[in-house]
């Protein structure tokens, strides 16, 4: 069976902004506890990225200077 070519998804800026506003409205309606729980989950998801950034920064700070004396 021939492989069907997937049409690349494209959005207009207006559609993206509209979607963003819709998500914002949903987030605003959440209760205090739900907002905090979402933030806790987000923080857990971001943790590996943050740790990788810290390692990168550490390496950069410890790297010998390239400047010729």
């Amino acid at each position, binding site marked *: 069976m021939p492989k069907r070519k997937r049409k690349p998804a494209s959005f207009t800026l207006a559609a993206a902004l509209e979607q963003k506003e819709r998500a914002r409205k949903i987030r605003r309606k*959440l209760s*205090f506890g*739900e907002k*905090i729980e979402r*933030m*806790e989950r987000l923080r857990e998801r971001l943790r590996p990225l943050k740790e990788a950034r810290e390692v990168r920064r550490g390496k950069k700070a410890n790297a010998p200077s390239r400047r010729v004396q």
Partner: protein
Amino acid sequence: MGIKQTLDVINAMEKEGVITCYAIGGAVAAYNYIEPAVTEDLDVFLSIESASGLISLDPILSYLRGRGYKEFRKEGLVIEGWAVQFLPISDTLDQEALERARPVDIRANGGRVRARVMRPEHLVALALRVGRPKDLQRIGQFLDEKAVNLGQLRSVLDRHQLQQSWRSFCRKTGRSNPFAAK
């Protein structure tokens, strides 16, 4: 591990007399009123009574150390996943914000916990005083989402001599000053 467990520990400290009174401020308190923004730490404002006049967090830290909470993340002590910053009140604005904080029931992490949360007008005034870009952005959110009572905010700003900072905030962010004389 989560906010409920963190606040349970802080409430136990209050019950056992390690701290007298506390209120949540900063970004987490703002979640009660506006769309949430990512934050790492939980700001806990508290009043510490000291006979000598010197304010020390030692009793709090040694209490928590005794319960196994020893890890620091940035300026906060990690309690059940949250880096908690204990901020002793330092001026009349802090004091008023602490005194007028409201008790709120928080349903999270499969349970319910009660904590005192600062009012929006005080959160805006405190953010204005700190004045970092993210604080100014948060003030903008309070205004855009109509989450702050402008009359009450004005009184807070007047009482704590923050009108000039407010005018500067309006100028920097290109907003018209709602308190400007017409």
